[in-house]
């Protein structure tokens, strides 16, 4: 027991510790400050996340593993954690104007976002299956609550309940799969599982366990056939919550999935590759076809996000270092585009309240030209039309798939992205060529900033891909 008495190395978990203590301080401020405290709590929560991203993670945390390998901070976790922190920061920033106008300015909202962020960071640093599960539950529980946070609205509570019931089912599948994997390999650490598999190969029981685990994880990134909750939850949840759900948690869950299959199941690549190829194809197809009939812009973005997760998985299906690099680049650019699109959706506000139909955007070019142009650029980018960032994101994952010899997957993916372009272009057509509807209220400053930053990334990625691509390459290198 003598080695137990040493304090474990806390430097790698410093950002999480910082945020956890910060979240509890925020709770205290909220509880003792009463209803007036929601503005300061919002501000401090953003400050905490910014400090974690700018100082604690780059300068305080030290790369390495701790707690007996349960927690790993490598270049991969580092890069994706930065993305997650960016997503959470802007999600809180974008909620502010909405919260004031729709009277849901509860101080618990930013606290729950901070706690969900801790969960996502733990997921990205998971070195074994227990950390994986605990991080995932911490994130998911906070998300269920924020989806239902507008408790007086039937749609919001329905969204929260649906998300919760299906999420609990997926957690059950994940746990069942993990117990089988533990039973058939005898290990919970990803490196140890990989070591054991390289000696023994895959038994049937292990493949069943792996499939259950993949099902549980695929639910979290909402890919077909585990996507059913996405449109309803996106539509029902308050819009700032949807903006959060669509951005950071997707990055975290995708990061977790990549780490699990690459670090833990590399020796049985063939077994999970088939699952990932099928899921990627089905998601791209559903994303392309089901979005065509949508009239609600939040549902449209939900189907679009299902499709985008499919494209990102094309990179993972390759199973190579270049493929993982493609996934990371894709998720970084997806984050930027999603935040920009939601900045636009959140500013679709008239005197009568928020509107979210696509027809409400009619003739936006004549009532608010800058917003129309920037939203059009984001839509072009989401459709994958050069020279915008979305094109390069797709290019990275498809070229990785081609290099790995997955020609059919790449060809079908390209064809489906052409189909998908239809509904993005329809939004542009409505904005530029339809009769103008009533103008929206003035766009709040924070939404302008988010839209501006997102557009900068989308437009100038082609000229200056360096920071994101190099970061992704270093991150992917850490897994192999």
């Amino acid at each position, binding site marked *: 027991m003598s080695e137990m008495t040493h304090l*474990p190395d806390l430097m790698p978990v410093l950002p999480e510790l910082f945020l956890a203590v910060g979240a509890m301080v925020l709770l205290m401020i909220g509880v003792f400050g009463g209803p007036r405290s929601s503005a300061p709590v919002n501000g401090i929560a953003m400050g905490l996340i910014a400090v974690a991203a700018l100082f604690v993670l780059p300068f305080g945390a030290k790369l390495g593993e701790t*707690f007996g390998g349960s927690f790993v901070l490598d270049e991969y976790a580092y890069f994706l954690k930065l993305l997650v922190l960016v997503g959470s920061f802007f999600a809180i920033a974008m909620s502010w104007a909405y919260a004031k106008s729709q009277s849901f300015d*509860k101080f618990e909202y930013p606290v*729950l976002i901070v*706690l969900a962020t*801790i969960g996502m960071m733990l997921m990205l640093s998971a070195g074994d299956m227990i950390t994986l599960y*605990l991080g995932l539950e911490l994130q998911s*529980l906070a998300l269920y*609550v924020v989806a239902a946070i507008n408790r007086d609205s039937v749609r919001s509570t329905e969204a*929260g309940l649906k998300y919760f019931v299906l999420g609990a089912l997926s957690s059950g599948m994940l746990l069942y799969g993990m117990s089988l994997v533990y039973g058939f390999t005898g290990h919970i650490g990803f490196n140890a599982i990989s070591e054991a598999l390289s000696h023994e190969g895959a038994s049937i029981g292990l493949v069943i366990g792996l499939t259950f685990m993949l099902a549980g994880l695929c639910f979290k990134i909402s890919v077909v056939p585990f996507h059913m909750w996405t449109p309803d939850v996106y539509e029902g949840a308050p819009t700032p919550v949807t903006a959060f759900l669509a951005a950071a948690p997707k990055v975290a869950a995708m990061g977790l999935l990549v780490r699990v299959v690459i670090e833990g199941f590399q020796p049985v690549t063939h077994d999970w590759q088939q699952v990932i190829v099928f899921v990627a194809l089905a998601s791209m197809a559903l994303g392309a076809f089901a979005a065509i009939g949508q009239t609600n812009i939040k549902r449209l973005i939900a189907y679009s996000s299902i499709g985008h997760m499919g494209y990102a998985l094309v990179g993972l299906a390759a199973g190579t270092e270049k493929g993982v690099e493609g996934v990371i680049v894709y998720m970084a650019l997806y984050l930027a585009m999603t935040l920009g699109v939601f900045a636009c959706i959140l500013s679709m506000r008239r005197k009568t309240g928020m509107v979210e139909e696509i027809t409400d955007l009619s003739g936006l070019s004549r009532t608010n030209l800058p917003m129309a142009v920037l939203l059009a650029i984001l839509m072009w980018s989401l459709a994958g039309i050069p020279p915008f960032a979305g094109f390069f994101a797709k290019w990275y994952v498809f070229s990785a798939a081609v290099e790995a010899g997955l020609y059919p997957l790449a060809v079908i993916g390209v064809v489906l992205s052409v189909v998908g372009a239809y509904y993005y272009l329809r939004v542009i057509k409505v904005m530029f060529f339809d009769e103008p509807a009533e103008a929206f209220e003035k766009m709040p400053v924070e939404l302008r900033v988010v839209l501006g930053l997102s557009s900068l990334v989308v437009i100038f990625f082609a000229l200056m891909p360096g920071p994101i691509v190099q970061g992704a390459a270093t991150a992917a290198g850490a897994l192999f």
Partner: protein
Amino acid sequence: MILNALFFYLFAGVTVASAFMVIASRNPVHSVLFLILAFCNSAGLFVMLGAEYLAMLLVVVYVGAVAVLFLFVVMMLDVDFVELRQGFLQYLPIGALVGIILLVELLMGLGAWVIAPDVLNHGAEPMPALTEMSNIEAIGNVLYTKYIFFFQVAGLVLLVAMIGAIVLTLRHKEFVKRQSIAAQVARNPSTSIEVRKVESGKGI
């Protein structure tokens, strides 16, 4: 050994049967009672594995607290469970079909495997023999040292659950009169008694 096997099948059989009755019985109170029966039999299975501390926890926490809480909730909520079950029979065939296919697949995939007895000692944290150390001591030795990280994160998960329950359900009603001890103590005859002159035959 035969006695061991006999008890195993007794506990396991009753657990499965009562778990089935939890979802099959019409009366929700009966469902909760069957749930308690399932918990007690699972506790029996834990005792047979030599995990006496977990067995007692299961009885104390799940039977003593959780199931009794369920019982209260079921009795207090005015939910028409018969109506809720309207669709149950309608979806039963397809649900049963999926369940049976899954069961057959799992039996075919996993049925051929048997756990080798010595494998139990190769786990991440092998259980010491009961003669050396009691369960509770063995758990305590690793829970706050080797697994402190998991312990703390689990604490955070519970914190989120608590915040969630409060955010989603707590309402401050304006018209509810609350007890204020300071105000009660500070009362004296001059603030609480009013003397009025009442005309006879009229009242106040």
